[in-house]
């Protein structure tokens, strides 16, 4: 089971990927989340004057925070637009995937077959996304706004005109950092990562780019997903003698890795860098001061001082009593993308929506970005952030922004 950035598995070893044991299938016909105007979805939704949106997201287990943040972001946009997107009344249906692949497939099926949704939002986990591809393609009845799952293979293997990443891909959160690290931090790194698809991808992309930039990879450490104690791995990192480390860990793995790195005093010896999920809003409170001075790369940073973002942050905080995180932004942009698609297409037909969205530009809190017409991947700039001491605990500060990143197309040409 692969979970994307931000997900966390609770416990050690590969014995227990599953956080919630009973969640093969989850089914949640909910009213709209807090503050949203939409009412519960019901059978026969998706008529011509309504736009039915299905959230394929986890709302329970360790991934609950991610799923809920995405929905909160989505609802915020919806609320700001009086419950309409592209002039259509919006109905939302949501089911709890609990981050499990099997459940994700079931829910996708249900949304497409039963609820007749016009748009899918989600999932959080790449494994779910990869498993969903076939169903989405088969039914071809809804546009798919991928609000988090970042595995590049959705584009490489799927290359679907209905699929739009309103989030990121794993290349984006790793490779672009390589040049920056080479220029600003060190010319040699050790790579450490959670040993599952997403971690492996991130490691590979970074390595490729780092070596291309002229740097040297002096060591590589793979820790099983859900490792609790990193001390055996820290030894290998230390003995590599590297001046910097690039890592991919997320959720509780990120918490454990970063805090133990600091417990063992290793961060005095090397500069820690990583994909943004290593040091994100959902892990920083638990990482605390252990995170200080570490660098990471992400497309959204809540502390970014642009007007667009500050407005978003204050609106979101007002509504949810907390700072938005990257997932909230992705949820927000999913709604925005759907808004653009629906108003441009003036239709709720999936392929109309998709062609209307292809190449479109979004004015996102993360900064302006557009969908690559060839892959429907987001063409966006990435922030390099450093963890600094803020007013309430530690926070990320943008120290550089990498613009004009050229994305690979992985053989996809829509």
């Amino acid at each position, binding site marked *: 089971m692969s979970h994307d950035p931000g997900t966390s598995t609770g416990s050690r070893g590969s014995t227990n990927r599953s956080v919630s044991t009973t969640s*093969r299938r989850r*089914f949640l016909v909910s009213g709209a989340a807090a503050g949203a105007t939409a009412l519960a979805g019901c059978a026969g939704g998706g008529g011509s004057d309504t736009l039915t949106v299905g959230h394929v997201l986890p709302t329970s287990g360790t991934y609950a925070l991610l799923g809920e943040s995405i929905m909160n972001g989505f609802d915020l946009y919806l609320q700001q637009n009086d419950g309409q997107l592209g002039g259509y009344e919006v109905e939302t249906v949501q089911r709890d995937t609990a981050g499990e692949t099997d459940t994700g497939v079931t829910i996708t099926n249900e949304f497409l077959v039963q609820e007749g949704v016009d748009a899918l939002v989600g999932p959080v986990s790449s494994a779910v996304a*990869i*498993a969903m591809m076939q169903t989405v393609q088969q039914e071809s009845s809804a546009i798919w706004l991928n609000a988090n799952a970042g595995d590049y293979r959705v584009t490489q293997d799927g290359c679907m005109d209905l699929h739009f990443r309103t989030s990121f891909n794993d290349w984006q959160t790793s490779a672009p950092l390589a040049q920056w690290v080479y220029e600003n931090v060190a010319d040699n790194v050790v790579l450490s990562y959670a040993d599952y698809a997403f971690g492996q991808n991130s490691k590979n992309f970074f390595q490729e780019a780092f070596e291309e930039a002229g740097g040297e990879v002096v060591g590589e450490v793979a820790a099983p997903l859900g490792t609790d104690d990193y001390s055996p791995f820290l030894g290998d990192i230390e003995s590599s003698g590297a001046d910097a480390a690039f890592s991919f860990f997320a959720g509780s793995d990120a918490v454990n890795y970063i805090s133990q790195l600091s417990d063992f005093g290793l961060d005095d010896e090397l500069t820690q860098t990583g994909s943004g999920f290593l040091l994100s809003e959902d892990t920083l409170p638990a990482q605390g001061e252990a995170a200080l001075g570490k660098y990471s790369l992400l497309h959204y940073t809540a502390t970014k001082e642009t007007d667009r973002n500050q407005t978003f942050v204050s609106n979101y905080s007002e509504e949810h009593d907390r700072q938005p995180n990257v997932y909230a932004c992705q949820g927000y942009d999913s709604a925005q993308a759907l808004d653009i698609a629906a108003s441009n297409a003036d239709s709720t037909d999936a392929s109309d929506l998709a062609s209307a969205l292809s190449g479109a530009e979004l004015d996102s809190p993360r900064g302006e970005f557009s969908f690559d017409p060839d892959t429907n991947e987001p063409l966006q700039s990435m922030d390099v952030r450093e963890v600094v001491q803020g007013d309430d605990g530690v926070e990320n500060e943008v120290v550089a922004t990498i613009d004009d990143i050229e994305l690979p197309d992985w053989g996809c040409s829509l």
Partner: protein
Amino acid sequence: MSLLDAFDPRETGSSTDGILSNRGRFGILALIAALAVLGPVASAVRPFWLYLLIQILVFALLALSLDFVFGYAGLLSFGHAAMFGTGGYAAALLITHVTANALVVLPAAVLTGVVVAAFIGWFSVRARGIYFAMLTLAFAQIFYVIAFADLPSTLLGVETVTGGDNGIVGLATLETFGLLDLSNRMNYYFLTLGLVALSLLAIVRLANSPFGRVLQGVRENEDRMAFIGYDVRRYKVIGFAISGGFAGLAGGLYVPFQSLAQPQLLNWTLSGELVVMLLLGGLGTLWGPMLGAGVVVLLEEQLSGFAAWEVILGSVFVVVVIFAPRGIAGALVSLWEDPEDAIGNVRDALANYREKVMK
């Protein structure tokens, strides 16, 4: 020969003698008939219900396979996900690399289940009771790790075999020389229903066969069975392997249906959930666990409409086990036999609970 007789042609009627009473058999036939009608109806009302029904049937089959060894033969398997999962992976690998023909894929899934179960069983029957349970769990987890870490790819030096944590995705639908279009979900439903019904028939048959009787004897008094001349370990391994075949079939039906094989299918949590289905439904009754599977699948679907749905689901398990000592099946039977006393039963159960807790 009537259909009823097919279940059990020489039923003697003694309560200790048959796994199902005549009424029970009739009930099951009626249920199968009802399910045959329900499929199309459900599909007409809400197409997704058909999808759900197929899932329920698959898990009912899996629960049935486990109950045959767990409830009937007393072999506490905590590792049935291993057979389900490997059966599923076998199906996925065949579909991806060889053929999607159901007549090849499903027998291969059964065979995989049998082989894996024979392997696990051969090692595990040396221990008894909870130790046996833990050994089966251990072996199942080993399969899980193998699939998750994609060890076969490392050993064979190829890029991927099990697909690691993402699993094997994008599977083609099963086909049957064009006889039955299985991409049509209704057809898949009937295929599944038919196979589940046949499996039930086969297992009832097995339970009442000389072999099944020996297993029952082993459950009752394993040592004495050895001292009247039975090679107990061999019976246990074979019983386990047969059960594994049905579990493999369930996996072989499920994976092409979801077009996905992933490591979670092998995880102990699934085995644990299965045991819960058995205990909730009514251990050793065969039909109870199938019902339990349906209830658990439905509960998980329906309950999650509530915010704290896990709390509710957990409470359901707790309440059932405390107040319905013989599971749903036991509660249904006593309700059927004495409907008027239902309230009395509840009162007794409460009084009993109070007494035990206050003690």
